[in-house]
């Protein structure tokens, strides 16, 4: 017997009692609809939550130079000057897992406006990418500085809320000029408030300027200096040590061979930066990003295989862990709700199919008498159940999708269409049809034709 015939028989069977078929399907429609709506609303919320956690820095990696060492004395991480702005560009260019990267030059000095002064703990020279990495692009006033400002080393800066309060009190700082080490900086924007970070330090007590400006005008250092993030004491002692032991001068990169030098001439002058702040495309891509950055920097710094790296990559393990556990929790919660509603729908189908088998005992007996085999009957009822579930699934997808659309329109909740959920709903509703349709169908196929024919 062709499967097409069975499907046709099953469809005729369903058409004979459209009301019952519709009520049965309603269970699955609501089940699948709930699943789809939950999935879409849930995914939307989940990705909104992920995004806000990510903005706290879960996707962020920090590349810092390695330690300098001379005569067995190490100076701690960040004490070497190995990172360049070109490294930053190379990371951005060659690492597909990296969304954006910002070079950072640190400074710590006094800021003066009129008769007031303040020393912000974080004074960073960077690019616009920094704001992007920290999800800080919404300024509360003014405009951020541009890449052109960075190229030209323009004397512009962005101020954090705390700094504005300390220096300007009630005034608007936009367009005003402040002095940093007697260099005049024009305030172009005010950052939105971020509050304290997890360690309790005030993130609003900050000044941002193009890294070139900070590097060349504020720190005023020659191009190759010790890292500003270590204390000046250590860098001077580094220099002292170098003087004491000639030849112990810390080399930026390992000695190049004559061939390397000929193949790849290197400019003598270069600027170093203190850190590179990197944002991965997503928290899942952090390990990939770390690996790619390591490869790129090892190559650029000509580190032989087996030699230790002259830089360190730090990730926000705590943040990432929070993010992962939140995501897992959300996914499991959604899955749980989905399972419950589908099981309820499935039990509904089984109920009605059992009733239907009892109600149609005579029909089953008749079909058997005219030559239907047990497996024909089994298939007929199974297909009826599966058809109900698939139709219910299709309508449920529409209902769920419509529902989540309405939620988005009227409640402005974040909603995300989830093709996985749709595919899963179709598969699951077919599976529910088979699983819960099987018992009634099996029961029908076990009937004795003689007794079935006599059934009243």
């Amino acid at each position, binding site marked *: 017997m062709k499967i097409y*015939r069975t499907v046709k028989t099953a469809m005729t069977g369903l058409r*004979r*009692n459209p009301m019952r078929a519709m009520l049965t399907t309603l269970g699955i429609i609501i089940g699948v609809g709930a699943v789809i709506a939950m999935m879409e609303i849930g995914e939307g919320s989940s990705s909104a939550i992920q995004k806000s956690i990510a903005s706290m820095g879960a996707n962020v990696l920090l590349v810092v130079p390695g330690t300098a060492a001379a005569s067995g004395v190490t100076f701690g991480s960040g004490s070497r000057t190995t990172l360049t702005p070109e490294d930053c560009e190379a990371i951005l260019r060659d690492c597909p897992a990296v969304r954006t990267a910002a070079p950072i030059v640190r400074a710590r000095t006094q800021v003066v406006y009129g008769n007031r002064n303040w020393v912000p703990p974080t004074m960073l020279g960077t690019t616009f990418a920094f704001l992007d990495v920290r999800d800080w692009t919404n300024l509360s006033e003014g405009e951020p500085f541009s890449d052109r400002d960075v190229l030209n080393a323009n004397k512009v800066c962005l101020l954090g809320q705390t700094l504005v309060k300390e220096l300007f009190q009630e005034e608007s700082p936009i367009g005003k000029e402040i002095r940093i080490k007697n260099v005049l900086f024009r305030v172009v924007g005010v950052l939105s408030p971020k509050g304290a970070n997890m360690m309790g330090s005030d993130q609003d007590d900050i000044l941002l300027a193009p890294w070139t400006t900070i590097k060349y005008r504020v720190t005023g250092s020659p191009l190759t200096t010790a890292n500003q993030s270590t204390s000046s004491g250590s860098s001077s002692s580094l220099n002292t040590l170098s003087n004491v032991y000639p030849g112990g001068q810390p080399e930026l990169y390992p000695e190049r061979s004559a061939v390397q030098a000929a193949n790849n001439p290197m400019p003598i002058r270069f600027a170093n930066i203190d850190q590179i702040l990197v944002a991965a495309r997503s928290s899942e891509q952090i390990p990939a990003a770390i690996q790619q950055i390591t490869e790129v920097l090892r190559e650029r710094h000509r580190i032989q295989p087996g030699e230790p790296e002259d830089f360190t990559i730090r990730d926000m393990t705590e943040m990432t862990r929070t993010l992962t556990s939140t995501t897992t929790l959300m996914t499991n919660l959604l899955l749980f709700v989905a399972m419950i509603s589908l099981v309820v729908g499935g039990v509904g189908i089984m109920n009605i199919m059992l009733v239907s088998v009892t109600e149609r005992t005579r029909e089953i007996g008749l079909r058997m008498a005219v*030559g239907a*085999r047990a497996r*024909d009957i089994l298939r007929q009822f199974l297909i009826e159940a599966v058809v109900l579930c698939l139709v219910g699934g299709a309508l449920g997808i529409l209902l769920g999708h419509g529902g989540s659309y309405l939620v988005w329109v009227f409640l402005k909740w974040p909603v995300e269409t989830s093709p996985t959920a749709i595919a899963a709903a179709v598969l699951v509703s077919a599976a529910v049809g088979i699983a819960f349709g099987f018992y009634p169908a099996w029961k029908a196929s076990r009937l004795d034709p003689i007794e079935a024919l006599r059934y009243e």
Partner: protein
Amino acid sequence: MIELNQIYKTYFLGEIAVPVLKGVSMTVAHGELVALMGVSGSGKSTLMNILGCLDRPSSGEYWLEGQEVSHLSTDQRALLRNQKLGFVFQNFNLLPRTSALENVAMPLTYTTDHLSDREARRRAAEMLSRMGLGDRLHHEPSQLSGGQQQRVAIARALINRPSLVFADEPTGNLDSRTSEDVLRMFQQLNEEDGITIILVTHDATVARHARRIIQIHDGVIVDGASASAAKPAETRLDQALSTSETGERP
């Protein structure tokens, strides 16, 4: 065509064995119109179920068109029913909310040689017009009278061109006039198409339409086991009536 040899059927109600058929032997030749008669509880329904391959005997041989069928599997018997046997029931057993046409075409769904839908419908329509229901093809059973419903059921029994048709109390739910029509239709089918028909009934007026009456009483055949031994229907009927009245065997 049919040859039963020492058929026994015993049902078990828990520990107690209830013998229903106690050594039934009978023959039915091609093209016969036979009535199977007996009071209720005589075992005639059980015998009909075995003859109709719906049930299997506990022991004995059943030869149907030269084939021993008492040992066939459930699926093989289903195939046999589909190809060689037709059934007409007392309560018609039509599918509710389904047109006469589709009711008649239903057994074709289970045939092994596949007809196209159009062919199946054409055959069903043809069969219905033969039954005089050519103008009722798309009526549902609830829109048909009892006699019409039974004629739809007969058309359904004939759709697979069976060689043997069982009619189990075909007139039990009909008034005497429509009963007469239906029975005449059976006679006509028997005479014109040579279809072997077995009427199962307890009603003597129905049995009178058969050319031979097989009497079953208390699980054994008391009369008419083979065509050669048969007396004319009328005489036997009188005997049968007297038997059922007095309860003694002739």
